[in-house]
């Protein structure tokens, strides 16, 4: 039983329980949370690669942008407790990218400019659940929000949607990435409030 905090009252409108996971509140802003300086990689030096399959596969920016894209609207949920509803994105589905690789691995480690990593099961990247997104609300994704391109896996806490993503390392074991090594949950399902290790 949680103790009552004397004098504390709800000030915000009730969040729709089917849209906002437990412990979250809705914001209209788009807060920025990153562990280091914002990297700036020129598009002519950018690539997206997938290693760990039978053959490594890599796309230049132009090759990546020639792939079929999807436009989608999703709610996103940050472990720091803000949720943002109806965000619109354009990106390339991971179904498209992973179809170019032969592999048997069950896990992936996404890696980014600046050294950031995060781990995900491959199953969470397939089936229309994950994208490499380059447009946000109709405009190129700003560097502070992960541009030129970030991973977008909206069904997991947003630290899994790696900013400045440059590729995936496929692997047989689920090895923790950057925040997962600092005590955050290995999987990160907001609906089960998997914020920290052991939740």
């Amino acid at each position, binding site marked *: 039983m*949680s103790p009552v905090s004397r*004098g504390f009252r709800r000030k915000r409108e009730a969040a729709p329980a089917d849209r906002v996971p437990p412990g979250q509140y809705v914001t209209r802003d788009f*807060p920025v949370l990153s562990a280091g300086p914002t990297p700036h990689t020129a598009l002519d030096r950018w690539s997206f690669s997938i290693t760990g399959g039978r053959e490594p596969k890599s796309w230049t920016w132009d090759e990546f942008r020639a792939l079929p894209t999807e436009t989608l609207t999703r709610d996103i949920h940050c472990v720091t407790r803000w949720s943002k509803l109806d965000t619109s994105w354009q990106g390339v589905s991971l179904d498209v990218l992973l179809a170019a690789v032969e592999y048997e691995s069950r896990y992936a480690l996404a890696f980014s400019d600046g050294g950031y990593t995060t781990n995900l099961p491959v199953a969470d990247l397939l089936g229309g659940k994950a994208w490499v997104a380059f447009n946000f609300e109709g405009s190129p994704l700003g560097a502070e929000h992960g541009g030129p391109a970030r991973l977008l896996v909206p069904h997991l806490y947003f630290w899994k949607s790696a900013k400045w993503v440059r590729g995936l390392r496929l692997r047989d074991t689920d090895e*923790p990435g950057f925040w997962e090594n600092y005590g955050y949950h290995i999987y990160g399902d907001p609906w089960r409030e998997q914020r920290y*290790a052991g939740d």
Partner: protein
Amino acid sequence: MAGTAVRGRLTWQTATVGPVTDETPTVRTLRLEVPDWPGHRAGQHVDIRLTADDGYQAERAYSIASAPGEPLTITVERLDDGEVSPYLTEEAQPGDQLEVRGPIGGYFVWEAESGGPLLLAAGGSGVVPLRAIVRHRSQVGSSVPVKLLYSSRSFQDVIYSSELDFPPDGVEVIQTLTRSQPPSWHGYARRVDRQMLAEVAWPTADRPLAYVCGPTSFVESVAAGLVGLGYPAERVKTERFGATGQ
């Protein structure tokens, strides 16, 4: 790195509000008495949960203001559109109860073996975790030289002003007031810019370590400025406050 991970499951614990100190008209420091607090490291944060008498709950994260070994203390800035911060800064009194969960985070942390020299750059209430670092440095008897570059809007918005007036040996405090300055002000009087960083920051040859904390615009500009001065990105640790919400 794995050694810094939080072990086991973090559980909510009941905390009793202890002494409170008003730092500025909108910022308050609260000591939280937690019987089984597991201890924390300098730079970590803690989750706070409030429960209303109708069962409604709200949770937010706050930086820890106290050094390891000191009682758990947070310093909270009131955000007008906030839900938790107005309660903590205006309503909560000694003896009131809330819940805490933590400590959280292991990256924006300084320990003696992290070394230095240290450049600590704070915008507004971003000074809170950096104050924990300065106190921890004193506590462990570290002689790592520290420069604390602290940007506030005005003189009355300076948090921990009495501590900052008498910093420990080896800690230099450089302040800038961006919006208004008292007549006798001798510090900087503008937003932190590249030139100010060049004047204040340790030369890269000293292999400095930087911690930058504050609102997004402050952190983006200071971190980019330091990288522009030649600081390796991996030696610039950042903690950004979102535009809303605490």
